[in-house]
C-alpha cells in the first residue's frame, strides 16, 4: 500500500479526522471494533430510505426488494468465506450469539452428562461462557488446551485431551489478546481424525486474513460484522449443512417455521430454521457492503500492510526500557499487548487517551488467559489497514511521555 492509497483509504473513514481533546485521533482499538467506511453507513441509510419492508412476507414491491437484498447479502458472505452453499450462512447478532446458538443447539442434540468440550486457554469469554452454561445444564466438562510462553497452543497436549467423551472443539482463529494466529487447519484435522467437529471463532481473523471454510474443513465458523468494518448487531454463523440439519432451532418464532398448528410445528429449511423473527436485513446488506469494501482493497494487501505496522510497532516499543510484550508467537496478527515495568495498564490507557490515542486496557474479556499469565491485564494496540507508521511514531512518543509521568 503506497502513501497515496493510504490517504485515499483514510478519506473513506470520516471518524479518522475527528479531534480528541484537540488532538488528532489515533485509533488503535480495532480489535474491539473497527471504524466504518462511508459506503457502509450510506448503505444503511439507503436501506431505510429506499427498500425498507419486512422480508420474505410481503408480496409487494418493497418487501421483494428487501428480501432480495438480504439474500444477496447471504451470497456475498458465502463467497467471502468460500462456501458454495449459501444456505450454510446464518445471520446472527454477532460472534457471541453464533457461539451461543451452537452451544445450545449442538449441545441439545449431541451432548449428555459426562461428555467433554475442548476449548483453549486463550479464548474470549464469549467462547467460554456459552460452553460453561451448557456444562452446567447437562453436567459436561470443559477441557482446556494450554499454551507455551510465546502464546502458542500446545498441540501435543491438545491431542491428549481427546477421549471417547469428547463432543466438540471450540477454538479462536486469532487470539484477541496475544494476536496469535492458531493453526486451525491442523487443529481441525486432528479433531476430525477422532470424528469430532470444530467450531472456529473467527472474530479476530476475518478482518485480517483470507478465510476459506471449505479448505479449513471447519464445521462451524463464526464472526462479527462490526469487527470487519460493518455495522454492530449483525454477525455470521457458517455451519456445514450436515450439522445444521441435525441440530434443533435455537429460537422459535416467525420465519423459522414451515407450518404451525397447536399440535405440531414443522420447521423451515436452512437457513431460515435458524433465523427466527424479522432478521436484520439492513445490517446484513451493510455487512455485505463492508465485505465488498475489504475485498476491493484485497485481504492480501491488508495483511501485508498490517504486518508491516505490527513489525514496526513491536520494534519501536522495544526502545522503551522495561517493555514486556505479551504474546510473541511466530504467527501473529496485528495485535500487540504489552506492559511497561510495573505500571498498571489502566494508568497508561488513561493518559494515552488524554493524548488522543485510543488503546484498550484490562483483561480484554479473556480473564482466564490473563490470570494464567499472572498479570493484572495488558495495554493492547490493535491495528487496521487505515493505520499508519506515522501514527505509530506519535503513539511511541506519547507512550514514552506517559511512562516518564508514571515512573
Amino acid at each position, binding site marked *: 500500500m503506497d502513501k497515496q492509497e493510504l490517504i485515499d483509504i483514510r478519506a473513506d473513514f470520516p471518524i479518522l479526522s475527528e479531534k480528541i481533546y484537540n488532538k488528532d485521533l489515533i485509533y488503535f482499538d480495532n480489535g474491539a471494533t473497527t471504524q466504518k467506511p462511508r459506503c457502509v453507513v450510506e448503505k444503511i441509510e439507503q436501506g431505510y430510505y429506499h427498500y425498507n419492508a419486512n422480508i420474505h412476507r410481503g408480496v409487494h414491491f418493497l418487501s421483494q426488494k428487501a428480501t432480495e437484498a438480504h439474500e444477496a447479502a447471504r451470497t456475498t458472505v458465502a463467497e467471502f468465506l468460500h462456501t458454495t452453499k449459501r444456505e450454510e450462512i446464518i445471520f446472527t447478532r454477532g460472534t457471541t450469539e453464533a457461539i451461543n446458538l451452537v452451544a445450545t443447539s449442538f449441545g441439545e442434540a449431541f451432548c449428555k452428562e459426562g461428555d467433554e468440550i475442548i476449548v483453549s486457554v486463550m479464548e474470549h469469554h464469549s467462547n467460554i461462557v456459552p460452553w460453561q452454561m451448557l456444562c452446567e445444564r447437562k453436567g459436561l466438562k470443559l477441557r482446556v488446551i494450554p499454551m507455551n510462553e510465546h502464546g502458542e497452543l500446545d498441540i501435543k497436549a491438545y491431542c491428549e485431551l481427546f477421549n471417547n467423551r469428547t463432543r466438540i472443539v471450540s477454538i479462536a482463529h486469532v487470539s484477541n489478546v496475544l494476536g496469535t494466529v492458531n493453526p486451525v487447519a491442523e487443529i481441525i484435522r486432528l479433531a476430525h481424525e477422532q470424528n469430532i467437529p470444530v467450531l472456529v471463532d473467527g472474530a479476530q481473523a476475518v478482518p485480517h486474513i483470507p478465510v476459506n471454510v471449505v479448505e479449513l474443513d471447519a464445521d462451524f465458523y463464526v464472526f462479527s460484522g462490526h469487527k470487519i468494518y460493518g455495522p454492530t448487531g449483525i454477525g455470521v454463523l457458517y455451519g456445514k449443512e450436515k450439522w445444521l440439519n441435525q441440530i434443533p432451532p435455537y429460537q422459535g418464532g416467525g420465519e423459522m417455521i414451515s407450518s404451525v398448528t397447536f399440535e405440531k410445528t414443522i420447521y423451515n429449511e436452512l437457513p431460515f430454521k435458524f433465523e427466527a423473527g424479522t432478521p436484520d436485513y439492513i445490517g446484513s446488506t451493510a455487512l455485505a457492503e463492508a465485505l465488498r469494501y475489504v475485498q476491493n482493497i484485497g485481504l492480501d494487501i491488508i495483511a501485508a500492510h498490517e504486518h508491516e505496522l505490527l513489525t514496526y510497532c513491536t520494534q519501536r516499543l522495544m526502545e522503551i526500557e522495561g517493555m514486556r510484550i505479551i504474546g510473541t508467537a511466530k504467527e501473529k496478527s496485528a495485535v500487540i499487548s504489552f506492559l511497561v515495568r510495573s505500571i*498498571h495498564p*489502566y*494508568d497508561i490507557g488513561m493518559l494515552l487517551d488524554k493524548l488522543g490515542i485510543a488503546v484498550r486496557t484490562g*483483561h480484554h474479556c479473556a480473564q482466564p488467559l490473563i490470570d494464567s499469565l499472572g498479570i*493484572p491485564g495488558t495495554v493492547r494496540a490493535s491495528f487496521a489497514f487505515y493505520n499508519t507508521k506515522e501514527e505509530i511514531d506519535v503513539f511511541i512518543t506519547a507512550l514514552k511521555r506517559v511512562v516518564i509521568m508514571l515512573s
Partner: protein
Amino acid sequence: MTINELQDNIIEEFSMFDDWMDKYSLLIDLGNSLEPLDEQHKKPQNIIEGCQSRVWLNAEMKDGLIMYSGESDAVLVKGIVSLLIQVLTAHTPDEIINTNLYFIEKIGLREHLSPTRSNGLLAMIKQMKLYALAFKAKNGPTTSKGE
C-alpha cells in the same frame, strides 16, 4: 473542617492548573504518597473489583468518627482514593451519608467515575456511604459536629 470545606480546598488546589498534564501529575503524586494499606486490611472482603483495576477499602469507627483507609493497584485510581479519604475521613456517619460529592466533577475527573471506566471507584463511593450507614445502625443516631 467540614466535608464541603475540604472539597472546596481540593477544587482550589486543582484550579491552579490549566493543563491536564499538571492535573494528572498531581493525581499521580497523591496516588504515590497514599499510605499503603495495612496488609491485614487487604482481605477479600475489602476488595472492590472493577473490570480494570481493583480498590481496597477499610473503615473503622473512632470516637464517633469514621476513619477510612484504602488502596488501589492503579496509581491514578489511588490518587482519587486518596482524595476521597481526605474528604470523608474523620467525619460522623450522618455527615458522610448526607454529603454530596461534587469535587470530582469540578476538578475534571468525572470520567473516572463513569460506570464504563470500571475502575471500582463508583462502587467505592457507594461502599464508603454503606459503611457510614452500617456504623450508624450499629451505634444509634449520631449528631453532626458543630450541632
